[in-house]
């Protein structure tokens, strides 16, 4: 009989590089920055690590050597995982399974990406790789997500102006959070009018509806829960992990309407069942979710069951997702403002939740009051063809 992952694995150290256009850092530098901070946070050294899982979304490096080479990890087992933008949480999940199985007691998890060496922005470096001579040629990440925005507006009777304004408010909120986060990539406040007036990237999404294309890495040290107290008192427990790899029917089946992230629904249900969560909006203190585009956040909140379908825009207007709101979403700034180095984002979300639960937010105004449990939502692929991972992290009870 399968058992829940709940309370079996603990995060005892976390690290995160600065995110941004880090012209002076190689991907190896980013690994060193993130991992050594995690080592220090856990009070361990690289020699204590028994195994590693590295998440890397692009082919900038291959194999587990992506981590063992920069850290000189002395011939230890390291596995590279890839689930596109959902890579980081997938690395954490596989490492957690190894620890839960007690194959290893101290494991390093790293998510990393170095995007800004390619000499291109969202349209090119970040464009979906082309694997077919004609099918989906010219389809980009912003273009795919914009298909969902167009249909969401249509379904819920929002004029393009109303729809864009709802999305603009999400971006204003995320930038407000990220502007105060010292490690974030795009650290500036934006106004609703700036977002509305920004150049269109993929109608209806404008520049400020799209996340940063960033360099960055984030790391965690995990161990079996029963060993965690020997490292620290305020360790973080994995409460639940759900994953869904969609069968890719959104572009084929006419019953998919692009206003819901189906894979997110599946992954959320699995994670909540493991964590024993029945009312996520009340039980969760914070949510770090995959807002590569503003519309991604709007629909993800609904698909996670944090808000009724089609009511997201009302939440946005009411400020329910603000730091002071009912359920703070992307307090870090999210992918939007903190940045999105593909393979790093899932681990970066875990880092943000850890630091918040431990009361260690670097900028005091960002610190939540007594948070207990946070959710991280990480998805790769495109609407209609997602891979989604959801993880719930919480303090010991």
């Amino acid at each position, binding site marked *: 009989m399968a058992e829940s992952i709940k309370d079996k694995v603990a995060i005892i150290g976390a690290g995160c590089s600065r995110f941004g256009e880090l012209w002076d850092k190689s991907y190896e530098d980013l690994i060193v920055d993130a991992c050594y901070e995690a080592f220090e946070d856990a009070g361990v050294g690289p020699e204590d690590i028994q195994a590693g899982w590295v998440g890397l979304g692009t082919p900038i490096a291959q194999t587990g050597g992506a981590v063992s080479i920069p850290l000189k990890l002395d011939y230890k087992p390291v596995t590279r995982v890839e689930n596109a933008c959902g890579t980081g949480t997938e690395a954490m999940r596989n490492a957690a399974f190894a620890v839960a199985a007690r194959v290893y007691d101290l494991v390093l998890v790293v998510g990393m990406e170095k995007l800004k060496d*390619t*000499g*291109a922005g*969202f*349209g*090119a*470096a970040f*464009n979906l*790789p*082309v*694997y*077919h*001579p*004609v*099918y*989906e*040629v*010219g*389809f*980009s990440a*912003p*273009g*795919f*997500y*914009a*298909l*969902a*925005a*167009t*249909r969401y507006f*249509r379904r819920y009777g929002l004029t393009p102006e109303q729809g864009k304004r709802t999305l603009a408010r999400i971006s204003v909120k995320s930038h407000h959070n990220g502007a105060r986060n010292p490690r974030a990539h795009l650290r500036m406040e934006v106004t609703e009018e700036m977002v509305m007036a920004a*150049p*269109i*990237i*993929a*109608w*209806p*999404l404008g520049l400020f509806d799209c996340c940063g294309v960033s360099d960055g890495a984030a790391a965690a040290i995990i161990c079996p829960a029963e060993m965690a107290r020997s490292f620290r008192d305020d360790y973080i427990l994995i409460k639940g992990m759900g994953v869904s790899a969609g*069968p890719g*029917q959104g*572009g*084929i*089946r*006419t019953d998919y*309407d*692009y206003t819901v992230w189906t894979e997110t629904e599946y992954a959320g249900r699995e994670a909540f069942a493991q964590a024993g969560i029945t009312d996520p909006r009340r039980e969760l203190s914070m949510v770090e979710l995959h807002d590569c585009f503003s519309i991604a956040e709007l629909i993800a909140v609904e698909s996670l069951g944090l808000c009724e379908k089609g009511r997201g825009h009302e939440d946005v207007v009411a400020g329910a997702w603000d730091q002071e709101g009912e359920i703070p979403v992307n307090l870090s700034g999210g992918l939007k403002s903190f940045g999105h180095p593909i393979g790093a984002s899932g681990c970066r979300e875990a880092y943000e939740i850890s630091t918040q639960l431990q009361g260690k937010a670097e900028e005091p105004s960002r610190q939540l009051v007594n948070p207990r449990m946070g959710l991280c939502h990480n998805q790769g692929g495109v609407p209609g063809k997602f891979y989604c991972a959801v993880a719930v992290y919480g303090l010991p009870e």
Partner: protein
Amino acid sequence: MIAGIESYGAYIPMYRMTMDILAQVWGSAGRKGEKAVANWDEDSLTMAVEAAIDCLRGVDRESVDGLYLASTSPPYREKQAASIVAKALDLRRDVVTCDVGDSVRGGTLALRAALDAVNAGSAKRFLVVASDCRVPHAHTSFEEQFGDGAAALLVGASDHAAEIEATHTISSEFMDIWRREEDRHVQSWEERFIVEQGYLGHMSEVATELFEKSGLRPGDFARAAYSAWDQRRHREAARRMGFDARSQVEDSLLDSVGNTGTAQAMMVLVSALEKSSAGDRIFFANYGDGADAFAVRVAGQIGEGPERRGVRKHLASKMMLPNYGKYLHYRNLMEWQPVREIPPYTSLPVTWRDRQWTWSMRGHQCRQCGTIQVPVKRICNWCQAKDDFDEVRLSDRKATLFSYSTDTLGTFNPDPPNVLTVVDFEGGGRLLTTMTDRDPDKLQPDMPVELTFRKITEHLQVKNYWWKCRPVRA
């Protein structure tokens, strides 16, 4: 068997360039009129598919025995275009295909060959398509004259829209316009010589001999549809052949479409057929490396069957090119800055393996649950049945735009934005594709769209074709 014309169709690209644009660019005196310019994703092959689809409305495609494709501007110097057109049209495997090239008279020569094949009983239905997208040198009179377009005639032994009463052909070594293997643009000799001795001389010769052979006189024809050099010489040719330019001569389309090369005479014939009723007699002639002339008698089936867009409807449906820069992009006439982007993908094994749903746009219909799906996969997207499908052609189905977005970064597109679309077919099935021939500001979810065969990318010297959607051309 007596071969005649069972059906006809035409295609004119959506975009038109006014002569004013050329006058502005080159500082020359403005001329009246405009010409049709193929979109960047069009060429003679894709326009041939369009004209053939127009011609085959209401015709069982399984019944077509052969396809001749005439063009001086085929996409490949070596590699047959007709076979690709046949696959896009979803014709039978045992269809006879042949490219007829190297002369703007290729269309009428192919027509003669198709008539002979049907008369000989070796084929029941033969499709003849003429299509050209000739790229003239910049800042020449050819740049003003050359337009892009295509026409198609279905030759068969029954249900004639028009019968062929007489034909006459002359072959001539006369050299007027040429293009060497290594050239992109045509060359020509001094205009006075080539028009006087070439165009006018050959047209009057072939017409005179057709009249002698058939016993018909110019006055017996309701219309004269024939290729034109320019407007003045088109009228002069009428005078020399004995037609009244005002009452008999069909508009040359020079001021609305331009000189479409191989397609020109056939487009003018289609235009004439559109206005004709049973019993009308049409003089039809084409010039180039000699001349062909036909006495065409409009028959009872004219106007029967589903309405074709032909010349008339395609002419009325248009968008204006805003400037010469767009034209430079569409015909790729400059050296552009290289772009840093992931290159497109070309794999001939993939293209071959996926031929049923790429070239022929056949989806799968699950035999278990009845749903339609594309691209085709082994396992049903709805009921998970394995390898249990029938193939259904989707390219000619009505469809609506479920959702769209406009990607301004426009990868692989010289005319951004990329309009990404989710297209739902009437009767089931959904397709992710891009939209062409569109005004990005005039899109609405749920608007009607239709599929059109286009060039998607060009990579490793291979042109990758597939189906895009476009707003329905009313």
